[in-house]
């Protein structure tokens, strides 16, 4: 009996040693993103290897995500924190990072992933004086609304994952390539679909759309806000209406986190089409992923530009 048991033991030991040579299934990489588009990219690149949580749910203003203490334990355990960059999250992220007490994700540490690396911003101000409103000192941070620039964010996320867990680089590469191939196909589709937008003028509540406008050849006429973060005065509204009438601006964009009253009034008085566009996935129903969100934005803009309902 004993020799058989000894044999069995040797077999189990050998099997154990051999399986030691197989890649072990590690615990998932804990990723926290500030906004939902980054979360979508992180899931696409990370696949089953990552557990992703987003601070925003998609309906918030990107500058007004609340500083909830319930975010703190999640950030405390995070391996990587992915942010949009260009100080987009300055109103809530610095205090949350400090409250998290996680040395890995402090600014410029190995777990602090700025998705904007390599992107040249539009609208970098020459002055940060408050007379210009709540300006972003490093330029407009809403580059994610340009799907070509969003690819850079995907690449930055991929690099962060591959650096953190090089043993899974091959899988991250496959996932990234597959997602970028899908995104490239959709970009070609959007560029074709968005041809009617070329030269079309529009206004929006907040300055979210310069990258989108540049990509699809639209003329970003102005904003309802007097300045970034400053509500419109009566005079500004009247001047905007007058200039929109002169220039025949056909589209008014309201981002869903802003009130309806003033955009509706401007659209009525200028006979422009009022449309509601999300600025991140989940901002309106059926836009849970980045691709679905861009599908919705392009389709809605084109429909408005062509005067269709």
């Amino acid at each position, binding site marked *: 009996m004993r020799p058989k048991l000894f044999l069995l033991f040797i077999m189990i030991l050998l*099997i154990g040693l051999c399986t030691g040579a197989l890649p072990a299934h590690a615990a998932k990489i804990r990723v926290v993103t500030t906004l939902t588009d980054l979360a979508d990219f992180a899931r696409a690149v990370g696949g089953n290897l990552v557990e992703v949580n987003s601070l925003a749910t998609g309906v918030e203003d990107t500058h007004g995500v609340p500083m909830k203490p319930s975010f703190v334990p999640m950030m405390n355990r995070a391996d990587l924190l992915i942010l949009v960059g260009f100080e987009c999250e300055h109103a809530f992220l610095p205090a949350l990072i400090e409250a*998290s*007490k996680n040395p890995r994700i402090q600014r410029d540490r190995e777990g602090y992933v700025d998705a904007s690396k390599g992107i040249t911003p539009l609208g970098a101000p020459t002055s940060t004086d*408050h007379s210009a409103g709540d300006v972003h000192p490093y330029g407009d941070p809403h580059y994610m609304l340009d799907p070509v620039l969003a690819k850079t964010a995907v690449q930055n996320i991929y690099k962060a994952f591959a650096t953190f867990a090089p043993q899974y680089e091959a899988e991250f590469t496959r996932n990234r390539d597959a997602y970028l191939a899908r995104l490239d196909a959709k970009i070609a589709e959007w560029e074709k679909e968005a041809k009617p937008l070329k030269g079309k003028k529009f206004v929006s509540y907040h300055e979210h759309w310069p990258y989108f406008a540049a990509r699809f050849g639209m003329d970003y006429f102005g904003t309802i806000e007097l300045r970034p*973060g400053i509500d419109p005065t009566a005079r500004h509204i009247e001047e905007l209406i007058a200039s929109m009438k002169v220039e025949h601006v056909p589209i008014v964009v309201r981002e869903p986190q*802003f009130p309806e009253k003033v955009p509706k009034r401007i659209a009525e008085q200028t006979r422009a089409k009022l449309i509601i566009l999300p600025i991140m996935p989940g901002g309106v129903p059926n836009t849970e992923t980045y691709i679905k969100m861009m599908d919705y934005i392009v389709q809605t803009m084109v429909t408005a530009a062509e005067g269709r309902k």
Partner: protein
Amino acid sequence: MKVMITLILLLILSSGAFAQTMEDRLNTLEQTLKKQEQTIQQLKVLQETLQKQEQAIEEQRKLIEELKAAAKQPQPAAPPAAAEIKQPAATEQMQQQVQELKEKVDQVVEAQKKVVPSVFNPAIGFVGETIFSYNSKNSQQTGSSQPGGFSVLQRSVELNAAASVDPFARGYVVINATVDPTTGEANAGVEEAAIVTTSLPWNLTVKGGRFFGEFGRLSYIHDHELPFVNRPLVLDQYVGGESKTDGVQVNYLLPISHYVSLTAGAGTQFGDTPNSVGDFRSASNLNYWGRASTYFDLTPNISFEPGLSGMWNPNTLSLGGPQIQPNGNIFNSSVFNERQRRMVGADITFAYRPLRNNQFKSLTWGTEVLYSNNRYDVLSPDGALSTQTVPSYGLYSYLAYKLSREWTVGTMFEWVENLYNNEARTSAYSGWVTWAVSHWNQLRLQYTHTNNNAATGLQPNDAVYLQWAWIIGSHAHGWQER
């Protein structure tokens, strides 16, 4: 036979291991091959670009030759209109791209020039706060340091600076000047100057220096950041204004999935009035405080944040002033000394902040209840020395409703028993409207009616305040402003 079976098994398993090792090698080779394919692809793209550039250069060379040949030919007699030279489309496009690139590079270089001179400066901001007020009673009747009638008080002239000290800590300074209401002179002082760790292990943060200790919910908020004009009576009287201390504070985040924060600190003072030092300060002369807080998302839009706080100074000497005993006797400061300071508090904050438009709508209800049970040495008129404790309660409760990004309205009820004489009671009702012209410019109009009972020796008072607060420079959104 058994040996044979063992050897065969070993061979099979080893081949399995060998196969596994081979599989690893194949995987590695496959990865290397993929990388090389990518590199080749990149080189091909580069090669195509170079070929295009070579083609453009060749076209330019041909154009130059044509122009040279044209220059050698006799010119026509009549001066013609300038001949249009058609450039190849590719050259025009390349020139445009070069020009755009040059403009971008110039912008970056210019931006760099602007940053260089101030590259080591901390983030600096300045806060100004003026209170215009009218009180229906004079200062003797209200017990206030402010005169009755019309008053303009420059309550805060505050300079803030903050920066990273190194990869492990940040530092910040708040220098504040307040105008003395009697002399009109502005007295500047260091309100806060502290270093805070950012990279400690075990979920710890340590703060040291001069700062506002974490007690309750509003004690460590600066005056201009309060949701109303004046600090609640109970905080003014029991804490001594802001919870200013010179000391050290440790905060610990429980390593669980639910937010629970624990804070403990020790310092040489707590509140605006410094401790009387004497010849020697022992551990019992220090102030100790602590707070435990947690947070619940009742729904995505509704939150509940409760906290418990405590403060203890085992052996203190108050600077005092004339005190009224519960029995109505009046003593001078030298014979009515605060021997021990003890205080506990409970605070709750309910907030409705819809995620979709929290910058335009919110409703906040905040309440704090404090219990003070200080111990005093009392010398009675007949010369007997005794120790008495005076249990006193105080509370405030406010409701603030944000109607839009600019407008907020609110109301507050306050009630406090005097620290030294718990039969002397004051209550107050306030209502206000706040107009945030912008994030850095805010006006608040507040009406407060104060009731004092007979034991206080004070009169009821009606007051109107107009607060104007503004910020220039850098302004960070601190954790306490959540």
